[in-house]
């Protein structure tokens, strides 16, 4: 059996011993799959993502990517790209400049080549004509797609996406889903997605985990279609969009 792409072992995270979000979590992400982190509001999905990408240090446990512990984000080139929830595009730069930025930092190519590479990424995410716009001139969906283009600029084998479909209209959301499936199948990227957009998850995710706020643990793991049929009411209620019993 091949080594997992990401391995999370005995991970405990939170803002201190009295404010834990997740205790002793274990899961793996395989290379080339779309893996979703699900859970209700406040269950710590986005916070878990921050620990996976090394922005926060866990209280206990370990996260390894391809068998290696987290790189120092201050000095090295991370082996992944990240799309933050609001896009986090730099407001002082145009969209094109945002995508060119990592290329100028890490790839020693002339400006025209870096620009061509960035324009290709913008075309890939359907923002071909918007490179000269500032982030403030973009809609929420365009910001998210622009952020994916920037995260993809250095061709990382792994992409983390925080709520990629949240707040998008159904058509844009479906287009984004198709883009993620294309990145997986054609480019071969492994994707870890934080979301609670079930329609999107059922369409694109190979496997997922469900976080529970009450028990501070992972209460289910597996393909979304299987979890929908779970015997655990907490799991089946979530996947079938049923209100919790009083």
């Amino acid at each position, binding site marked *: 059996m091949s080594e997992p792409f990401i391995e999370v072992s005995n991970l405990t995270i939170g803002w201190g011993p009295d404010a834990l979000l997740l205790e002793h979590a274990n899961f793996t992400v395989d290379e080339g799959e779309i893996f979703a982190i699900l859970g209700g509001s406040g269950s710590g999905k986005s916070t878990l993502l921050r620990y996976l990408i090394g922005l926060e240090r866990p209280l206990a446990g370990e996260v390894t990517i391809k068998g290696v512990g987290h790189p120092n984000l201050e000095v090295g080139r991370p082996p992944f790209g990240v799309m933050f929830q609001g896009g986090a595009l730099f407001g002082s730069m145009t969209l094109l400049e945002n995508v060119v930025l990592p290329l100028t930092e890490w*790839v020693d*190519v002339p400006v025209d080549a870096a620009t061509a590479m960035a324009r*290709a*990424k913008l075309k*890939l995410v359907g923002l071909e004509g918007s490179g000269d716009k500032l982030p*403030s001139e973009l809609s929420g969906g365009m910001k998210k797609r622009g952020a994916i283009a920037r995260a993809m600029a*250095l*061709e990382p084998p792994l992409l983390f996406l925080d709520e990629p479909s949240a707040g998008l209209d159904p058509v844009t959301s479906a287009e984004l889903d198709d883009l993620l499936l294309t990145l997986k199948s054609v480019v071969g990227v492994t994707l870890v997605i934080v979301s609670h957009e079930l329609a999107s998850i059922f369409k694109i995710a190979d496997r997922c985990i469900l976080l529970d706020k009450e028990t501070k643990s992972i209460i289910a793991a597996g393909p979304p279609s299987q979890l929908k049929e779970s015997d655990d009411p907490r799991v089946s209620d979530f996947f079938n969009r049923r209100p919790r019993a009083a």
Partner: protein
Amino acid sequence: MVQSAPTSAPLEPRGKGPPFSIARADDALRLRGELRVDDAAAIWKGISDGLADAKQGRVDLDFSEVEVIDGAVMSLVVQARAELSARGVRAELVGANERVQALVHLYGGDEKPARRQRRKAEGFVEHVGRATADVLAALRGVVSFLGSMAAAVVGVLRKPRSGNFGEIPALVERTGADAIPIIVLLNFLLGFVMGFQAARQLEKYGANLYVADLVGISVTRELAPLMTAIIVCGRSGAAFAAELGTMRVSEEIDALRTMGFGPVRYLVLPRTLSLMIVVPILTLFGDIVGILGGLIVAATTLKVTPIAYLTESRLAITARDVESGLMKSVVFALAIGLIACQQGFATSGGAQGVGRRTTSTVVTSLFAIVLIDAVFTVLYRVVGI
């Protein structure tokens, strides 16, 4: 046919070197091996050099020996193809295996090469027109803001309970009490420097005692109000602009509006009022410590006793001198408050917009303070204050 198409040796030998090679052979540019973004610079050089002599005809970009290629390098190949097309050379990507072909398709390598439209540079007339329109829009914004402010004042006067007066004590503490140390220190140093400069001149004429007159009148009428206003502008004005600007870009001001709160009444009035309360008080502190600074210079370098200095100050400084400075300071405060809040309300464009408006607040307020000071100086002279 391509004009000059010599077969070239591989530009990057395989083996211990890079895991790829790029070689020109007749009507084809052969790419081999693993082409990844980490080698993008060398790959781009290889492609550019390999295609440098292609001026017309057809050149195939041969992918038949490409084992791995990523999207970044594929976009360079597509760009090279577009540049060839612009030079009148037909170029096709050939020989790709199924996996690579999927990436070729994804990056538009099998589409007709796109010709980028260069944006026409803005002409002089367009530039002047746009700048004029921007200035007019900014002026309209200022007039509109002042109108809203006037309406808010009338509204609060008619219905005092509608004013957000509860916020004023906290604002007074933030803009006033917290500013006392810096105001005291700088005004003291100002009086000290003023006294020192005056002492050197007055000593020559044996008019040592008159340093009290010079320091006292200049501090109360001009220097303390001006220095205090400058500090408040840099401290509280900038803070107001940044605070309201952030609220503006995060739609908090729009939220207030939708809840029926007039944002000018709710946010601008308390801030401006708090400054109008605080700045004269801070100016009064400035007057006192400024005179104290002059006293220390007189006592230490001019052999003027503190009692003599204070007696002379009392004779030289009239209530009207202090009042004239305090009146000015109220108008300074009004100007700082209005400019800071107007700039905050006009913010757009995220973090950069907030920074731009904060800078603009300080610069505009400083200009306004000096302008108002000049107007008051002339006005006092005319009415004999």
